[in-house]
């Protein structure tokens, strides 16, 4: 079998390690043929959170830090970048990236923007709420965003037209990899098994290091070398529609049958029917073969015709959610912590009985710990306090609540801070945080409600904005 394309995974979520993609880009740059680097950075709530200008700004800065690391290598080596970076204003995102290239002294890239995921551009709120939803919003929740998971064909078209960088909004995560595969092989919309292979490849690398030993280690049971520099994945897709998973050269972590199987089933329900916009992926007969040296082959994905309807994620503003914590340590700490919880429950019942309340007991060693760190803390405590069956009690009371109004959340959580003078003995380290609460629902969207468009930031002669039906 011959490798037809390589796709590297540069990020598995918006908060992923910023420097990890460099090793992937450098690895890809040492090869020839079609190579791509993809970034999955759009979690379910990111679009709704992006309505807050501060959150939006932070997200944009993170995206630019990510790209700063890899743009010089990728533009030099001819490795197109694909990312679902366009959460707010993709045209503006494209401009920022172009400016960054100028600042870095790189060649100015040809940037393509895939739009059409935002249902609110074409549909009324009533129309959207009238769709088939998996969960009905509560009466005081307001719809703030509704985005369809688009498929891979618009990405492929952008690549066919020479894009160096493809910015999308909401797309199915595996589409970031399937797009390059469609472009490389020239796949048709009904090449179900091939589309399944590309979707599987995307599913395997979309969570970054999770297939390379990240989120896998369990000391003494599943040991992973050098997680501090864990590698991010590269998938090689062959002409026989096999996927070879490996990690960037010179990195930590490991790629084994076990790491691959855990990722294979990650967030899967029925293995015979993983629904995506482009194909229904069947992994029930997939084989996983360890080839050694952190290389694993995954074969025999099957495809079935794509679903009639697309999935959209709807986000709702749903008031405020808050947490407050306080610690108790040493003799009888758990009893004191439980007393604190009893007090909070009694106060909450008097203050605002309607609010939901959740109380937890958290902890191993923190309050008595020393600056030097966990192991030193445990050793020191065992030395200074004599023989202990393990370590002293050290628990943290956690109180969480939510309400449509921020003040109600704040008032209830103030009761945790008030434990400083009114609660059990020896409470300390109160922390409180209150955040906007954004709830989500999934909607099934008929394809004819969706129209996708492709726009180039730097049009060439002969370019035309392409409208693609759903």
């Amino acid at each position, binding site marked *: 079998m011959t490798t037809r394309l390589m796709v590297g995974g540069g990020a598995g979520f918006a908060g992923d390690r910023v420097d990890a993609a460099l090793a992937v880009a450098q690895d890809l740059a040492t090869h020839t043929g079609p190579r791509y680097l993809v970034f999955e950075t759009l979690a*379910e*709530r990111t679009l709704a959170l992006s309505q807050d200008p501060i959150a939006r700004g932070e997200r944009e800065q993170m995206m630019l830090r990510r790209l700063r690391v890899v743009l010089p290598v990728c533009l030099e080596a001819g490795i197109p970048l694909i990312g679902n970076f366009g959460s707010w204003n993709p045209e503006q995102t494209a401009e920022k990236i172009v400016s960054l290239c100028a600042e870095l002294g790189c060649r100015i890239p040809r940037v393509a923007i895939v739009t059409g995921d935002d249902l609110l551009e074409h549909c009324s709120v009533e129309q959207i709420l009238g769709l088939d939803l*998996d*969960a009905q919003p509560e009466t005081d929740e307001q719809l703030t965003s509704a985005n369809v998971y688009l498929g891979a064909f618009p990405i492929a078209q952008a690549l066919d037209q020479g894009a160096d960088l493809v910015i999308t909004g909401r797309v199915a995560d595996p589409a970031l990899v399937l797009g390059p595969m469609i472009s490389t092989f020239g796949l048709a919309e009904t090449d179900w098994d091939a589309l399944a292979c590309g979707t599987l490849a995307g599913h395997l690398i979309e969570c970054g290091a999770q297939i390379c030993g990240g*989120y*896998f280690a*369990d000391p003494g*049971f*599943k040991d992973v070398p050098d997680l501090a520099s864990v590698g991010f994945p590269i998938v090689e897709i062959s002409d026989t529609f096999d996927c070879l998973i490996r990690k960037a050269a010179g990195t930590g972590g490991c790629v084994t049958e*076990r790491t691959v*199987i*855990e*990722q*294979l*089933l*990650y*967030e*899967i*329900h*029925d*293995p*015979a029917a993983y629904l995506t916009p482009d194909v229904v992926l069947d*992994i*029930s*007969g*997939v*084989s*996983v073969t360890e080839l050694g040296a952190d290389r694993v082959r995954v074969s025999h994905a099957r495809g079935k015709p794509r679903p009639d309807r697309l999935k959209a994620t709807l986000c709702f503003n749903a008031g405020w*959610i808050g947490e407050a914590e306080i610690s108790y340590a040493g003799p009888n700490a758990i009893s004191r912590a439980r007393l604190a919880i009893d007090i909070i429950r009694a106060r909450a019942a008097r203050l605002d009985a309607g609010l*939901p*309340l*959740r109380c*937890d007991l*958290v902890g191993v060693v923190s309050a008595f710990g020393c600056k030097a760190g966990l192991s030193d803390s445990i050793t020191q405590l065992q030395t200074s306090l004599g023989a202990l069956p393990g370590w002293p009690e050290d628990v943290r009371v*956690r109180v*969480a*609540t*939510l309400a449509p109004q921020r003040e109600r959340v704040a008032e209830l959580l103030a009761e945790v801070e008030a434990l400083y003078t009114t609660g059990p003995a020896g409470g300390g380290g109160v922390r409180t945080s209150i955040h906007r*609460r*954004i*709830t*989500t629902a*999934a909607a099934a969207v008929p394809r004819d409600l969706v129209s996708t468009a492709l726009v180039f930031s730097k049009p060439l002669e002969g370019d035309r904005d392409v409208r693609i039906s759903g």
Partner: protein
Amino acid sequence: MSVSLVEVPLHQVAHARAGDKGNRLNISLVAYNPELWPWLMEQVTEAVVLAGFAGRSPSGVKRYVLPQLRAMNFVIDDVLEGGVNRSLALDRHGKTLSYLLLSLTVRVPAQLLTR
């Protein structure tokens, strides 16, 4: 010939990863030793998992099996307090719940306790 069985947490004989979508949790379970597969098939049933998660009031458990990978996939409904965007829990995704599954016990032949 009788086999001597030992009762161990699943954690000794299998590994797992949890994922969430809305209020639905999935947990993969993969046997370390291929010879353990029939023992897990027999003992880690939908009913056993349903009972193991009873504290979180699941509305249903579906088990999918991939024998060629010695892997099962459990889909557990309504155990995430409404899901990541609605839950008041510390771990709103339910990511730690793979280790709740691995806390269930199984009885297996002692000689198969190799990883």
